[in-house]
């Protein structure tokens, strides 16, 4: 299985990872290898196997609807790069 340069560039955009031109050939090889591994898995006969949502054979525990968290804004915002009036500030996003 091969992966195209366009696919790699698209995945990089989706993952918000900046790629240098010279990194792409190595990634083509590495990601191609991973996809080959997936091809091998795909070859296994799974006709009578139900898809697995989680590797653990267990069921999710649910939590009662009670407030257990308190306001820790100060602690959280101490490590934020920029805050103002209680808001986290991020580079301007406009859609």
């Amino acid at each position, binding site marked *: 299985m091969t992966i195209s340069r366009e696919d790699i560039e698209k995945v990089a955009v989706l993952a918000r990872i900046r790629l240098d031109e010279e990194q792409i050939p190595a990634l083509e090889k590495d990601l191609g290898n991973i996809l080959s591994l997936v091809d091998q898995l795909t070859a296994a006969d799974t006709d009578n196997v139900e898809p697995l949502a989680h590797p653990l054979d267990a069921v999710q525990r649910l939590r009662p609807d009670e407030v257990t968290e308190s306001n820790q804004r100060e602690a959280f915002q101490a490590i934020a790069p920029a805050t103002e009036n209680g808001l986290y500030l991020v580079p*301007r996003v406009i859609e």
Partner: protein
Amino acid sequence: MQWDIVIGLEIHVQLATKTKIFSGSSTAFGAEPNTQASAVDLAMPGTLPVPNEQAFRYAVMFGLAVNAEIGRRSVFDRKNYFYPDLPKGYQTTQLDHPIVGPGFVDIDLADGRSKRVRIHHAHLEEDAGKSLHEDFHGMTGIDLNRAGTPLIEIVTEPDMNSAEEAVAFAKKLHSLVSSIGICDGDMSQGSLRFDVNISLKPKGSDELGTRTETKNLNSFRFMEQAIAHEVERQMDILEDGGRIIQETRLYNGDRDESRSMRSKEEANDYRYFPCPDLLPVEIDDAFIESARVLLPELPDDRKARFKEQFGLNDYDAGLLSADARLAGFFEETASHGKDPKLAANWVLGEFSARLNAEDKTVTQAPITGTQLGQLVTRIADNTVSSSGAKKVFEALWNGEGDNADAIIESQGLKQVSDTGALEQMVDEVLANMPDQVAQYQQETDPKKQKKMLGGFMGPLMKASRGQGNPKLFNEILLKKLKG
């Protein structure tokens, strides 16, 4: 060319839980920014989500209310995209195994038709935070209090064919989720948000056209306008030989215009996969039954009961049953008033008009159903005329008295129904209007006669200082004029 309009809706409903879907943070509205955003909500490394049982119960209640299958085993997936108000970089949602499966809602239309709108499914997911684009030195402010608020996203089949049908469905859904208490129904705070998928196809064609999605409509009026706007836009393009691009559009209600937000063809690749942090949730019969017992009477059932119990027509019963609080007020009025139909008229008429005029909800009304019911009784037994009743209503509303009887007494609004006294007044008035009496008696057209009769009522009401019973006046007049 003639076109068929095809509309499907996606509705985000904020669930009225006390805490978030995956953390014990409060969901109370109006808190200071980021004071209700815990480590889980902020996606701090090492945190794990634990689902809120009540969110599942509410989702199951919704499923039962729309006649849907309940997903016995529901699975959470990650929908990956980057946006600053989504700290994890993915939204935890449900893709293939939603909590609510196929169901339906029946809507009533203005022309008396009823139509079934199928629900494709409804799934549980988390809301995102809020981005504030006011200027923070060229930066954007992020408030994550809303991040992780539980939502159900309800997806309909494309079963609606006009703005009227889409709005009727939206109102019905609003009524349903508020009535069963799983959502506060406050659209101005974004508790319900509608996305509208619209496409056109040549009339009668089986093949669906390319659709666009208009996002985040939070009022019924904007929804109606946005649909009209988008239908016209697509029609113009298609009739000019153009092609519709599948895209998301934003509608600006204040300007009645829309713009493309992003093209779904290229930008959206969400790379869904099952969330490894959460195990499948199993819903058993006991859980479903525990949700079922919490369901109050549904609006459709209430409507049928109002027709049966109070003899209301379909239209009035529909209006009164849609909102649980209005329905409760009406029932209180009807139980204290002798005449349920008259009670319905007053609740839907004077009372509702006053609420609208003062922008109040039923619970904020300064009068109770009991007070209105007592007034209705006095109208029904002819103690007070309808114009007198309006004065009593006004006084009750303004707190100028506790009950109808006291106000009727103190303001002298008691209708005179003593036939002897009324007859005397009629005699006096007629004696002063000999020409009109002669004219009336010469008239052969009953319609014109009826009209002329009104000419006597004014002076009679004046003579009785507005307290004469109009019905009795009418009877006496007819008798006397016949001669």
